[in-house]
């Protein structure tokens, strides 16, 4: 009955408990609203399709991402925060799982383009790795500074980028405020970025692609999956130690 414990923790309200009739009415109202919303989503999808040839597909993926994030209470922030704050690593392990699975997918997509021994990389059709599927972007001091500031922000605000959006849908007022300042911060960041880019110490502009850096797909696969596996084992051990199982 972990479900019912979780929901009592989440909803500590001082209001008197609602009667069964009230609960039935609320449930009917919400189900009706949800159904109407699904219809609206389909209609909006048809509209988006008129604006963007892949619009409806992107829209449905977005809806499915939101639905999945909410149903599974998947939270990247908690995956980073909980090991330090509570010692829990269940979400951390889930994130590693998601990353390992995605790595397999990206590997297939990219290998098709680069060739098994990266022979196509640097050719006319595939100038550099940043043209490959996935975000292969500049790696450097800016990544570390940005990631660090982002990590602080995500924990304080109680949700990262995807988490903030998900919690907005769940009805959290705090995240509706956070998004306004997230947007404002993005503009500040967009102003700061060119200043960083002007400094050779603060900004390194080269994207670094592991198969290229390590000299081929085989070492890249060993390093990528080896590290992910090692971190998973470490997270598992740490979680068990903290919960007293070891």
């Amino acid at each position, binding site marked *: 009955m972990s479900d019912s414990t979780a929901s009592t923790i989440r*909803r500590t309200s001082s209001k008197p408990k609602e009667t069964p009739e009230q609960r039935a009415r609320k449930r009917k109202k*919400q189900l009706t609203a949800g159904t109407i*919303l699904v219809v609206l989503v389909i209609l909006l999808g048809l509209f988006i399709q008129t*604006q963007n040839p*892949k*619009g409806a*597909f992107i*829209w449905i993926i977005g*809806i*499915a*991402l939101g639905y*999945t*994030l909410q149903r*599974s*209470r*998947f939270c*990247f922030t908690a995956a980073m925060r909980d090991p*330090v704050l509570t010692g829990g690593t269940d979400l951390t392990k889930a*994130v590693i799982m*998601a*990353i390992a699975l*995605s790595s397999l*997918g*990206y*590997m297939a*997509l990219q290998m098709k383009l680069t060739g098994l021994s990266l022979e196509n990389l640097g050719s006319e059709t595939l100038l550099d790795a940043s043209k490959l599927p*996935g*975000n292969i*972007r*500049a*790696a450097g001091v800016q990544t*570390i*500074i*940005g*990631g*660090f*500031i*982002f*990590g602080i*922000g995500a924990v304080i*605000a109680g949700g990262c*980028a*995807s988490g903030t959006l*998900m919690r*907005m*849908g*769940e*009805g959290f007022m*705090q995240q509706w405020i956070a998004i306004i*300042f997230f*947007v404002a*911060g*993005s*503009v*500040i960041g967009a102003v700061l970025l060119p200043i960083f880019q002007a400094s050779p110490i603060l900004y390194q502009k080269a994207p670094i*692609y*592991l*198969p290229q*850096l390590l000299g081929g797909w085989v070492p*890249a696969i060993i390093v990528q999956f080896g590290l992910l596996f090692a971190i998973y084992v470490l997270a598992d051990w740490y979680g068990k130690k903290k919960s007293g199982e070891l």
Partner: protein
Amino acid sequence: MGENKKYPFHETFLKKEWSYSTGAVLLAILALALVTVTGSAWGVTGAFVMWGGKFLQLVGINADTWKGFNGALAKYNFWKDQPAITDTGIVVGALISVLLAAQFKIKKIKSSKNVWAAILGGLCMGIGARLALGCNIGSFFSALPAFSLHGWLFWISIFSGAAVGSQLLKKYFM
């Protein structure tokens, strides 16, 4: 518990929470489907910059001439911006999820501490995501699995940031 038995379909398909592993597998599949079909990976915050710039234009500040925008605002179209569509989708998808589970509830702000947390946290995330060229999605979930070193660097740094953030949270925002 009697109530749950009354609606077995609702309980099983709409109300039951999914495991983290289910979430992980589905997120990976959805993100891969997106990049396979459209060619561009899942991103979130790229759209936020443009919305901010558009807002500035609306109040009479032409941010488009700034170095950070460089004319991108004039060409911007919400419905052609993949992150803008998926971002909206995530909010609506989560709302559908809680409504169909009959668990929607407006969670009001309890104290001014929460407001400050949202303001400072939001600002930090915005600035950080721009500098790192992406957020926990663009510079992590769509980067690390794509064998980009910046995804690994982002992971190390967001983890350290989260550790510092946890201390700040305990000290000032709880």
